[in-house]
């Protein structure tokens, strides 16, 4: 049952570990996954530590529902202090690792210290072992997974691994599993690399027990049928997230040439239907009836043959619109390379687009250019940069491997204006100038610019306002260019995603995609059937609030506050140039945006500086661990 599930505390410095049961009170307060990870992040990490030092703590947590046959319940949350931002480091990963970790007897791992030599953690049916990974060091993410399977002579092993980017401490190296799943954001692969930890491998045949298995099975079937019967899921099943492109590249909600234009003209070759000629089928994560990933084969060109999975909409922007490469082939090759080296597709795409714009604006010295032709649309430069950054080769490779903030410091103050980053992290290639709700979400996200923390995508659909009020609990404008009620929208979605990440299901099967997808009510029932916990909708929302407030407290302690919840200046100064009249000519209104931020803080119970109020902490039962001001 859920009450006797385990956490392993593993210290790589001493090679010692201990195993404990996760307490009932922690479950009640934080559920699992991201929630419990954030509790540990706040309590176990001292303020001001070096994210690459042995004192950083790497947290791996499965969700409360991970393992059930519905809603893509195969997700795992990976957290640490981020080496990219210095704030909350947290990234969620699908695939098959998380359920395997649960079948191997563990829900959570807390990894501290640093191994003396390359190592990997082997978890098998309740046992933990730290093993030598010298022979794995230098291998790519695909080879590493295969080698571990072959070393143990067990093809069913699932591993979280890092590639060369993680080994070389690229600050936005990711953690990977399978062909494409990645805990992409905030550099969790870099933290693994800093600990000499090449992989965490799991294999198990232990039961996952539930208090009401028959009802759980019925409800999972009901959920699966509901999801797959919906039109949005059928579209996801066929085209994946690429389908978003058709719309954003018509309306004008997509970034091209870094942030210069908001439409890619002659971008037909990036339309989702183009994938038909490469696709051999779709692929789903554990427990997912949607299966939104393409399995693709690239047969021609200098990099062929490639078998890969994806690409996501994110990669379409990273290696398509933002760098002005207009061929699906380029996206597929680059997608393969980032997966191979284990580096965040979104971050590297953002950083390459930025350096290309600096090149165009002649803000780089010869030394910085490092012999590259950084012209827009130069796909070879994109491939080369992915390699050089991952391997930290050459001046430019090394410069960009540290992420935006150190690179801005070296290139010069003027380059900052062109860097589309928040808290040191790159933003998705969506253009949020016409959409205040989306802009608020990226500005306030605790892990830096990001769409997966709070994005109210349904704001774009022009839904009836009665319906929006029913969902969000107060009036919200159905016009996506309006500011009215948008703080509430972001706040509500933020709580929803905090819970989604804590119970270990896929966001794409929640109100991210569609208004009739599962939300708090469905979560309440699933939590009850899997754990016996009876939590009402307000109680679940309060848990979401607790997770968010703990993240805020962690960030406050590291020096983050309202001053960091900001948008790049270009959002205020440069109007959108293209798109429909409703989108064209838009900037974010500074005053209205400031009001949005204050409303958003107030909904969370935080003060006007973005610091949680004492009474909020009391209500949520969060200990104030901030150092006393002198």
């Amino acid at each position, binding site marked *: 049952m859920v009450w006797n599930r385990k956490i392993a505390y593993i210290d790589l410095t001493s090679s010692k570990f201990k195993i404990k049961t996760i307490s009932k009170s922690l479950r009640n307060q934080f559920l699992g996954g991201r929630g419990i990870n954030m509790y540990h992040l706040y309590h176990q990490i001292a303020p001001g530590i070096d994210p690459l030092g042995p004192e950083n703590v790497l947290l791996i947590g499965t969700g409360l529902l991970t393992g059930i046959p519905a809603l893509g319940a195969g997700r795992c949350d990976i957290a640490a202090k981020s080496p990219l931002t210095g704030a909350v480091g947290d990234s969620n990963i699908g695939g098959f690792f998380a359920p395997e970790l649960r079948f191997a007897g563990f829900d959570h791992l807390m990894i501290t210290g640093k191994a003396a030599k390359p190592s990997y953690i082997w978890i098998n049916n309740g046992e933990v072992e730290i093993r030598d990974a010298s022979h794995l060091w230098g291998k790519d993410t695909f080879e590493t997974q295969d080698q571990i399977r072959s070393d143990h002579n067990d093809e069913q092993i699932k591993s979280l691994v890092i590639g060369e980017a993680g080994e070389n401490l690229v600050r936005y190296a990711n953690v990977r599993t399978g062909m494409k799943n990645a805990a992409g954001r905030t550099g969790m692969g870099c933290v693994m690399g800093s600990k000499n930890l090449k992989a965490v491998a799991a294999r198990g045949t232990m039961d996952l027990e539930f208090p009401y298995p028959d009802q759980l099975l019925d409800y999972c079937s009901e959920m699966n049928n509901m999801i797959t019967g919906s039109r949005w899921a059928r579209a996801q099943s066929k085209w994946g*997230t690429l389908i978003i492109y058709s719309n954003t590249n*018509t*309306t004008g909600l997509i970034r091209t040439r870094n942030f210069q234009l908001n439409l890619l003209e002659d971008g037909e070759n990036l339309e989702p239907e183009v994938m038909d000629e490469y696709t051999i089928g779709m692929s789903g994560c554990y427990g997912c009836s949607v299966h939104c990933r393409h399995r693709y084969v690239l047969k021609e060109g200098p990099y062929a043959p490639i078998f890969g999975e994806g690409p996501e909409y994110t990669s379409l922007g990273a290696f398509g619109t933002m760098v002005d490469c207009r061929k699906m082939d380029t996206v597929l090759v680059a997608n393969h390379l980032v997966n191979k080296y284990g580096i965040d597709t979104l971050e590297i795409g953002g950083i390459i687009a930025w350096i290309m714009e600096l090149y165009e604006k002649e803000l780089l010295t010869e030394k910085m250019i490092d012999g590259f032709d950084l012209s827009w649309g130069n796909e070879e430069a994109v491939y080369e940069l992915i390699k050089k950054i991952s391997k930290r080769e050459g001046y430019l490779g090394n410069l960009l491997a540290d992420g935006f903030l150190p690179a801005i410091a070296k290139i010069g103050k003027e380059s900052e204006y062109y860097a589309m980053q928040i808290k040191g992290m790159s933003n998705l290639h969506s253009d949020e100038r016409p959409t205040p709700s989306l802009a608020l979400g990226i500005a306030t996200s605790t892990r830096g610019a990001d769409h997966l923390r709070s994005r109210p995508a349904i704001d774009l659909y022009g*839904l009836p306002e009665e319906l929006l009020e029913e969902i969000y609990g107060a009036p919200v404008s159905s016009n996506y260019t309006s500011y009215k009620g948008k703080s509430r929208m972001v706040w509500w979605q933020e709580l929803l995603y905090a819970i989604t990440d804590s119970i270990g299901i896929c966001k794409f099967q929640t109100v991210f995609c569609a208004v*009739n997808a599962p939300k708090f009510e469905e979560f309440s029932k699933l939590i009850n059937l899997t754990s016996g916990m009876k939590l009402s909708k307000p109680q679940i929302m309060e848990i979401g609030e607790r997770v968010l407030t703990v993240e805020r407290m962690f960030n406050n302690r590291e020096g983050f506050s309202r001053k960091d919840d900001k948008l790049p200046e270009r959002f205020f100064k440069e109007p959108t140039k293209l798109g*429909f*009249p409703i*989108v064209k000519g838009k900037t974010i209104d500074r005053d209205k945006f400031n009001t949005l931020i204050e409303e958003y803080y107030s909904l969370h119970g935080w003060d006007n500086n973005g610091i949680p109020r004492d009474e909020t902490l009391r209500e949520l039962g969060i200990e104030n661990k901030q150092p006393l001001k002198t």
Partner: protein
Amino acid sequence: MITGKIEILFQATFREITKKRKIVEQINEDCTFGEILAELAKKYGNDFFNIVNPQTNKISNDILVMLNGKGIREIDEKIKDKDVLIFSLPVGGG
């Protein structure tokens, strides 16, 4: 009487049904979205009628129809010269 032309863009499932990305339609005075829908259903089949929720007589919440970039739900929405309609599905993600 023909008074204008509109563009209709098809995405996702609608592109699959019509096998077209874009068509240009001529419209009459006082044209409504409902009339356009009837035309499309005549040309491309009932999938276009089915986007209307019979209970509410509005465009279903799991369909995304945009008029000049703005999501619409009402059948009697006025359509005028040079308007652009998009038929798509709401899918989030990144």
